């Protein structure tokens, strides 16, 4: 399966064929890679300590010392943006890591066993849809203490439902295909069929779903942080920076909110473009 997965991933984004994809997708993919690299190497890239406050440096304009200026506490905005890329990526990553395995497992069980188990899982999915992810995150922040992890875990409930619903319908379709029947006849066990055949065949769809979920989860996490219920100050985060820059807007210094929301828009747009592209390809395969 690993060899298979590798070839599949390779077909989706082989470096040698980047030019074969639409230009927008190539640019979006490049942007994502760039943001991920920035997040990984953030401590090496920040020109100043992102949490170093200095009251006399409040609201400085861009200069050689502070390329993007400073915020209300005199902290270097560029450093905070670079540092903020880490939480911006970490939150959705947690959501994906939780929601994808659980969602896929629930979907396969429901599609395979059918009957009452399918009914129960499908109803649980429906009920999960009734609660917006944001509401769950706010409730979780109220019950536990507000933090990135609590928000991400709470949002995972909704994203698990999304993934499970999409994967279940495709798994049902695959299940009725003759090649699966032929595998039964060869004496394969259910787990062997799942691992070697069903999951690889579902992989393009799962990958597309993961990408789209990542984009939506980025928005949700940033929103929760904006509300003050996610990432907690003084940790730099794009969502909290938008909120912190709010007061400055009235004083004529909109940079902080603008930069942070700009970064969010670029990240979300890039992930969405790639996600749409992967979804199209997954659907073409049907």
């Amino acid at each position: 399966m690993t060899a298979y997965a590798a070839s599949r991933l390779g077909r989706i984004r082989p470096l040698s064929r980047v030019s074969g994809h639409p230009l927008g997708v190539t640019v979006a993919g490049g942007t994502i890679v760039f943001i991920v690299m920035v997040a990984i190497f953030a401590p090496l890239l920040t020109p100043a300590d992102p949490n170093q406050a200095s009251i006399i440096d409040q609201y400085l304009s861009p200069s050689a010392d502070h390329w993007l200026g400073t915020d209300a506490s005199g902290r270097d905005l560029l450093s905070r943006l670079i540092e903020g890329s880490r939480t911006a990526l970490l939150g959705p990553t947690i959501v994906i890591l939780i929601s994808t395995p659980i969602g896929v497992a629930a979907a396969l069980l429901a599609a395979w066993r059918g009957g009452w188990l399918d009914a129960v899982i499908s109803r649980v999915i429906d009920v999960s849809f009734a609660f917006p992810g944001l509401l769950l995150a706010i409730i979780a922040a109220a019950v536990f203490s507000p933090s990135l992890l609590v928000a991400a875990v709470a949002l995972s409930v909704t994203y698990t439902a999304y993934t499970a619903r999409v994967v279940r319908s495709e798994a049902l379709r695959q299940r009725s295909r003759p090649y699966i029947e032929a595998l039964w006849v060869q004496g394969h066990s259910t787990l062997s069929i799942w691992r070697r055949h069903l999951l690889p065949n579902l992989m393009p769809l799962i990958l597309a779903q993961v990408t789209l979920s990542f984009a939506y989860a980025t928005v949700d996490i940033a929103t929760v942080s904006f509300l003050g219920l996610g990432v907690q100050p003084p940790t730099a985060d794009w969502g909290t920076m938008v909120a912190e820059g709010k007061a400055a807007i009235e004083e004529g210094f909109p940079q902080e909110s603008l930069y942070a929301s700009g970064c969010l828009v670029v990240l979300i747009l890039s992930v969405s473009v790639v996600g749409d592209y992967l979804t199209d390809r997954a659907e073409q395969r049907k």
Partner: protein
Amino acid sequence: MSAPLLEIEDLCLAVPGQAGERPLLRGVDLVVGAGEVVSIVGESGSGKSLTARAVMGMLPDGAKTAGSIRLAGTSVLAASGNELRALRSQRVAMVFQDPRAHINPVRRIGDYLTEAVTAVGGVSGSAARARAIELLTATQIEDPAGIMSRFPHELSGGMLQRVMIAGALMGEPEMLLADEPTTALDVTTQAEVMAILARLRRDFELAILFITHDLELAAAFADRTAVMYAGRIVEEAPSAVLHEHPEHPYTVGLLRSRPSLGHGTGRLEAIRGRPIEAAEVSGGCAFAPRCGFAEPRCLTEDPRLLPHGAGTVACLRAGELGQVEERSHA
């Protein structure tokens, strides 16, 4: 005859329908000995594929069964999941009509072949590979080693059917169920595939249950041929006997409705009416409404499959056919 490898006794199968149970098989009796080739011939919906599937333990959802299927000493209908898996991986294999639909399109041929024994039988990867190439060679496919790394869409239907046959033999089964393996192929490929099956049968001493709607093909390939109608076997005999001296009016009709070079260019005779489903049989002989020899008792009395001559036949008037005049088609 050697000890029976497969013994189907009075197999009945019904699925839940809109109005209660819908019977699909109405008491199938069939015996296949070790190394023997038996054909089941019948029209669409007569239950021939269903019988083969039942032998593999693959029943439709919610199916109710009666009777028994004994395969290599195991009662299929009573077997647990593990017993069925052992049976499928070691004793019996199946070849389907449409190889393209029955092979995972995104896996390589080599994976398809070797997985059948590495995942189930615990055979090592290199041993499985060697066996796969050996079997591909036996199916006379060109460049067996090269085929291993190809994808199904790169192969023609005939090649894929050979691959599927090779895959079926990976587990060294004693019996092969072939469900219309040549129906989807063109005539020349069909002849090649049949020749391969005949050779493999000899080389591996395979028993084959061959499902087809082609009576001529069945008679040419199989030791014995069974004719199915509306969920029951109506006649069964050594192939040559069945072909030359059919006893059941339905078999007679099937043979007559086939174009043949020897019979001139006269009009072909179709069997009157349409094939009925097992669920529509109300009592009496299922074929009676279409039969040119039917008597009043045929409509009320259900004929049983009884020994007659060299085979068995389920007809109340078995043996009289040569002497009585068939009613003309009104």
